[in-house]
């Protein structure tokens, strides 16, 4: 079989070889409906490639590292990232390369093309895999096409595909991918036709934009929308958006351009064209036996069908809301830019202002009734910001992913996490906090009198520079213990910070930042920029900025949220204080006792309890020697494991210990400068512990299953952050 098939050859090759998309296009073309000039790289080429290069075995290793059931979304993304990079860095064997190149050269020349996935089973009648595999547009030249063929193959193991692996029947031994190569149509207008409206079975829906439909698919441009009678095609209603931009082909990619004043006023389709698309949609429904989701485009009044697949509401009947939400985290560059502006210009200043406003209210002066009202108000404010956190901050953090993907595509580094070096040391708020802690520790180190005073629990006078700086610290970041758990944890106050500072001061001043990163980031950046053609460098620079902002805010937003949480705790704490104060009037105490936030039992600690540290006879007989997680910070360290089950545990953390926990809460990261390594049960490169550990150059392992059960508090362990292996030291063989 030829490694590149022309559309006339698809039927003979069979659907198993050309995949669902190519197969459907061939059938559409046979019906006399226009499709772009289309070729296909059949599944056999994919199979040859992964077999000859032994890539199949490497993917197998990667996806079996841990059971999927034990993985979080972030870990699945990490796997997809690593697999994608393996495809990028594994060259095509010479024979495959030559055969593909010759035919691509002959068929496509230098024409701009779309390179799309066409998995067998995809776009078939049983399931629609919309959005799980990748497609690329405006690709030209043999080298670029070959690279994007590999990227489409890699998307067989995209994070979305891994998430839906059961529905897809994804299996490294049998799953295959064909690639469709299509001539790129420089569309005037394009859009999507839904044969049936998922929320109204009597309607069809037609969406249209000027230019390419890429922006419509990514949600960057709002389309004109027509609701049509499914049976007659009659227009029921037309919704007009604010039309201002359209996506157009530019050298090396797609860009947005302003619409002319005339087009801003004119819907992209007239009634006759709406009718024509509805009729074609009906034809396709008859051809494939069920309502279709059709991507169409107009070029000089010629209607061309780009693809057609059966409609399913979200691709699958999905009862797992979290999974659906996770898929929405794939954001386009445009979308992330808008989000960035919203977060930095509006949300963060609003959060800071909210925390300051609440902090300036003197709680002690409030009547019992006003205090209850205040707690309610603070709870409302806090809840509001938690919802903002999920709706805007978390999606924005995925800008790191977008940058990582673009970096890897452009640079094809051996280390798929090389891009992180360009994002690090960007002035995280928590680093600022830890620096203040260091400054306070320095004061203790250099002032023996102060040290003795503090050791004896004697606070220095209010005019002492140490007291000033400590007040500044507490005003800005709270007294740490308040932000590490529920309100009942707030009892430590200033003493908790001092205890921690004594521990900081025990270390020599210079050892604060662990092993600094050795990467030459200037050279990395140069390499990154150089991998883009001149006209794309501005985009590359902007994307790097976006990635850095995303990385920085990933931590900072939690710090700001922590400040608001602290204000809530303070109010609750004041209520609890008055409840326990015999001087409080009975009617006030009754009122406070009836108030739900104060009468409820104290919240359970965030971390679940691991088994007790005492060794029972049975425990002596069973030890976990090695645990495998995901390598999240390179380096190796040996030390005493300190299991942090409750926020209080952090306050007695000793220098050089290894922090072992379910997950580092962003507000807990203040102990990281004391730690020699970090182990987290939760997984993923984007989680806070991993980010901060990388900032300090500490070995870090995330996604270590059951680490809190398998590692015993006080045990000597070694953390290998290169391989992601934790080894417990046991005596003898």
């Amino acid at each position: 079989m030829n490694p590149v098939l022309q559309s006339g050859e698809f039927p003979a090759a069979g659907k198993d070889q050309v995949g669902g998309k190519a197969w459907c296009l061939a059938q559409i073309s046979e019906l006399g409906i226009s499709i772009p000039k289309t070729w296909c790289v059949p599944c056999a080429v994919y199979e040859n490639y992964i077999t000859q290069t032994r890539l199949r075995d490497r993917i197998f290793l990667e996806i079996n590292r841990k059971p999927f059931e034990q993985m979080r979304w972030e870990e699945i993304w990490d796997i997809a990232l690593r697999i994608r990079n393996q495809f990028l860095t594994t060259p095509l064997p010479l024979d495959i390369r030559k055969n593909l190149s010759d035919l691509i050269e002959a068929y496509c020349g230098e024409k701009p093309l779309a390179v799309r996935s066409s998995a067998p089973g995809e776009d078939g009648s049983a399931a629609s895999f919309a959005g799980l595999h990748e497609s690329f547009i405006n690709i030209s030249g043999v080298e670029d096409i070959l690279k994007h063929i590999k990227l489409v193959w890699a998307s067989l193991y995209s994070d979305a595909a891994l998430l839906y692996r059961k529905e897809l029947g994804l299996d490294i031994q049998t799953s295959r991918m064909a690639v469709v190569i299509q001539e790129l149509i420089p569309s005037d207008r394009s859009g999507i036709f839904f044969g049936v409206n998922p929320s109204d079975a009597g309607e069809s829906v037609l969406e249209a934009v000027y230019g390419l439909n890429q922006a419509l698919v990514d949600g960057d441009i709002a389309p004109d929308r027509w609701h049509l009678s499914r049976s007659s095609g009659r227009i029921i209603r037309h919704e007009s958006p604010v039309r201002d931009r359209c996506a157009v082909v530019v050298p090396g990619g797609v860009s947005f351009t302003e619409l002319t004043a005339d087009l801003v006023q004119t819907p992209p389709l007239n009634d006759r064209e709406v009718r024509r698309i509805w009729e074609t949609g009906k034809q396709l429904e008859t051809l494939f036996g069920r309502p279709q989701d059709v991507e169409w485009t107009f070029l000089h009044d010629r209607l061309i069908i780009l693809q057609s697949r059966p409609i399913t509401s979200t691709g699958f009947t999905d009862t797992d809301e979290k999974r659906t939400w996770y898929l929405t985290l794939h954001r386009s560059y445009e979308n992330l830019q808008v989000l960035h502006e919203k977060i930095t210009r509006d949300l963060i200043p609003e959060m800071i202002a909210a925390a300051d406003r609440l902090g300036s209210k003197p709680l002690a002066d409030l009547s019992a009734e006003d205090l209850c009202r205040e707690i309610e108000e603070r709870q409302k404010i806090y809840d509001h910001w938690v919802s903002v956190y999920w709706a805007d901050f978390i999606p924005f953090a995925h800008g790191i992913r977008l940058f990582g993907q673009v970096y890897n595509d452009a640079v094809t580094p051996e280390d798929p996490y090389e891009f992180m070096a360009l994002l690090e040391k960007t002035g995280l708020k928590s680093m600022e906090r830890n620096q203040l802690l260091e400054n306070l520790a320095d004061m203790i180190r250099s002032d023996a009198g102060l040290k003795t005073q503090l050791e004896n629990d004697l606070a220095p006078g209010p005019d002492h520079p140490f007291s000033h700086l400590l007040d500044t610290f507490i005003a800005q970041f709270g007294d740490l213990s308040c932000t590490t758990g529920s309100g009942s944890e707030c009892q430590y106050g200033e003493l908790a910070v001092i205890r921690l500072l004594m521990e900081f001061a025990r270390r020599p001043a210079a050892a604060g930042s662990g092993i600094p990163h050795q990467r030459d980031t200037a050279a990395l950046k140069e390499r990154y920029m150089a991998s883009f053609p001149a006209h794309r460098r501005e985009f590359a620079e902007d994307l790097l900025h976006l990635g850095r902002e995303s990385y920085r805010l990933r931590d900072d937003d939690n710090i700001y949220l922590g400040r608001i949480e602290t204000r809530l705790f303070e109010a609750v704490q004041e209520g609890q204080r008055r409840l326990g104060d015999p001087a409080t009037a009975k009617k006030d105490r009754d009122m406070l006792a009836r108030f739900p936030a104060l009468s409820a039992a104290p919240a359970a600690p965030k971390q679940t309890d691991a088994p007790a540290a005492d060794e029972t006879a049975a425990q002596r007989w069973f030890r976990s020697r090695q645990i495998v997680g995901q390598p999240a910070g390179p380096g190796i360290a040996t030390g005493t494991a300190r299991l942090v089950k409750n926020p209080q545990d952090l306050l007695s953390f000793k220098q050089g210990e290894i922090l072992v926990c379910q997950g580092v809460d962003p507000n807990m990261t203040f102990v990281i400068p004391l730690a020699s390594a970090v182990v987290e049960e939760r997984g993923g490169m984007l989680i806070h512990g991993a980010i901060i550990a990388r900032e300090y150059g500490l070995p870090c392992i995330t996604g270590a299953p059951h680490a809190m059960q398998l590692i015993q508090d006080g045990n000597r362990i070694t953390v290998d952050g290169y391989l992601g292996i934790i080894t417990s030291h046991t005596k003898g063989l």
Partner: protein
Amino acid sequence: MENNRKQTLEQISALFASQDLAVLSTQKNNQPYSSLVAFAASSDLAHLYFLTPTTTRKYDHLTANPPVSILVNDSRNQADDIYRAVSVTGTGVAAVVDKAKDKGALELFLKKHPHLKEFASAPTTAFIRIAIHRYYMVSRFQNVVELEITP
């Protein structure tokens, strides 16, 4: 933790039941040596048994230097072995068993390997018992747990 231990012992039992052969490692005069043996395990996993002619290097080694290790695994010589296969190493002390006296153990062994009955009865075949000190189970390439059987 107790559950983990129980679960691991069950996994080891299942592995031992599924495999006929094990790799025995011995040492004498600073010279290590490995050999393949047909083995059987006692139900409590405290002892492993195998047969060997008395003329072999392994016999020479283990009688001179009884601490040994033994490895059982279920790899199939396929690429996926690296994650799928489970491997168990036992460490312990080997001793020659008097075949005439410890008939129960020999019966247990021959129940698993009935075709070795003749081999077992030869006067030059020794019946060896390893008293296991610890097991080390490796799964998914790098997950390792340790169990102490006898201190």
